């Protein structure tokens, strides 16, 4: 009932772990998958290791957090070892996490669908993206291009996704080589996200993830007058950015006919339904893990099923884009 498809790949439900949240190790991603997510997006990684910014890298604000982790990652050659350990084939297997959170009654001993592993990759040039794609495309089911991080250094992240031409070049380079579908993750911090979406589509992107974190924003500590994040500013995520993410999905759905994965502020099944109504085929969940832990995935799946029964929806497909019927 909860099944959905993106670019020919089937997800057992529409809930995917968002990039940058508990995605640094196979172990934490497997925990998320055991907790009910149909797929995971890894933390973004690059050709070379990157320590990211000094702390503080995250601070709470009204309705969410702002963060400037700075794309820390161990580099593709180290990270491949993690990718290999993501348990994609789940027939009868599970991991025991005891009372720390996994609903083991659901998982243990059952036939379980395959899970989807999505690598989030970044770089500063089309060549860098291509190099990383080549290294990992046989280890994952899809690749999400991070061309949208609002606190990246040296020409990475939003420096690409705020420019339609760079967006085109990077997506094209990745798509040309990849054995698996390419998803472009876009930034809302542009004058017109539809323009960027179409650049990505024209370059061959199979799907889009909307949106990366908002702003960026900053928080200045009141007693000291010092911006709290060591990078001074960071991308905003959490419940407050949802209206803007939903609007981006709504607009891009009307003007760009490739599947959309919605992300931004999802905390419960109502938020998921809103993103589906707006035109998302699936959603990613990240910051709200802060409030509820990994069990947010099974909780929302259960709520979503109830909602669908009560409202006579037989499939996720029937909900996708519903808000555009008028």
């Amino acid at each position, binding site marked *: 009932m909860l099944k959905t498809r993106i670019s020919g790949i089937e997800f057992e439900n529409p809930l995917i772990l968002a990039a940058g949240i508990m995605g640094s190790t196979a*172990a934490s991603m497997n925990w998320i998958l055991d907790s009910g997510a149909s797929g995971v997006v890894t*933390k973004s990684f690059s050709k070379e290791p990157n*320590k990211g910014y000094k702390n503080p890298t995250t601070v709470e604000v009204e309705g969410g957090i702002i963060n400037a982790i700075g794309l*820390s990652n161990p*580099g593709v050659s180290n990270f491949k070892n993690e990718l290999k350990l993501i348990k994609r084939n789940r027939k009868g297997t599970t991991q025991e996490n005891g009372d720390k959170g996994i609903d083991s009654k659901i998982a243990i001993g059952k036939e379980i669908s395959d899970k989807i592993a999505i690598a989030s990759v970044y770089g500063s040039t089309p060549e860098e993206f291509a190099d990383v794609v080549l290294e990992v495309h046989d280890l994952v089911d899809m690749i999400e291009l991070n061309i949208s991080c609002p606190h990246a250094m040296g020409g990475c992240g939003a420096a690409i996704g705020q420019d339609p031409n760079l967006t085109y070049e990077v997506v094209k380079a990745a798509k040309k080589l990849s054995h698996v579908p390419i998803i472009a993750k876009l930034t809302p911090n542009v004058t017109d996200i539809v323009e960027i979406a179409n650049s990505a589509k024209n370059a061959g992107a199979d799907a889009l993830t909307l949106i990366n974190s908002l702003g960026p924003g900053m928080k200045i500590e009141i007693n000291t007058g010092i911006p709290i994040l060591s990078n001074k500013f960071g991308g905003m995520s959490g419940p407050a950015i949802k209206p803007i993410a939903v609007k981006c999905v709504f607009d891009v759905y009307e003007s760009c006919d490739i599947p959309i994965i919605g992300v931004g502020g999802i905390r419960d099944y109502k938020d998921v339904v809103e993103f589906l109504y707006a035109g998302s085929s699936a959603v990613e969940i990240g910051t709200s893990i802060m*409030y509820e832990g990994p069990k947010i995935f099974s909780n929302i799946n259960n709520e979503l099923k109830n909602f669908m029964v009560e409202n006579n929806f037989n499939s996720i497909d029937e909900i996708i884009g519903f808000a555009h019927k008028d």
Partner: protein
Amino acid sequence: MNKIINDYRILEIKEIISETDTIKTFIFDWEMEGNRIPKPGQFVMVWSFLRKKDEKPMSISKIDENNNQIAITLKNVGEFTNDLHNLTVGDKLGIRGPYGNGFEMEGDNILAIGGGVGMAPISCFVDQATDNGSNVDIVSASVTKNELLFLDRMKNSGANIFTCTDDGTCGFEGFATHRTIDLLESRSYDMAVVCGPEIMMKEIFNILEAKQIPAQYSMERYMKCAMGVCGQCCVDNTGWRICVEGPIFSTEDLKKITEFGKYHRDASGIKETF
């Protein structure tokens, strides 16, 4: 929905105690209120903004509910701790927390094992246990006599202290492991709490396991958000977050943490073996 404590309190350092040549304790006023009241074993994130800006998790080393104060105790081991060691009374730090799960009291006969600055959370727990009337034996280990922490405070708490130093300048000459094996020959315990270098903890783990003594261990990993989102402090093979599911883990939990005593990850996520 859990409320995450994530606003900084900018606090004046009220007192600095030079515990040893390399270890200092910093005392702060702390409003004891709701989920701000720390449990032994919990940690705070300490933001230094005066010189080189950085932020690290630090175990709480004293919880004084009567005087509304808490303390942290740091060994000068690098750039960040060196900066903090150069602060003076009246200087300010940003503190958020407390975070993590803390030790759980189980039974009345308690063995507390602290190696070096690992005595910080252990001493907090000993205060609580002795207040509750439990019998507490402490194995306090360090390289040399001058580096033994909180001796007077621990004596005053009513706990029995069994010191050991690598060079034999105080108490038993040798490691905490040897001291523990000795103790366990004649005594039994309902529970143990352990904090120290991970290699030491791993050996203690084997000793206590052999004797079937339930134990709780305080783990440390590189930390960024401390709010359970960034994933930086997740451990193999469970994926648990040290900042939320930890930093205190039971024997049973620790058996599932396959990287325990073997490796940890640096800021970029690269594994470093112990």
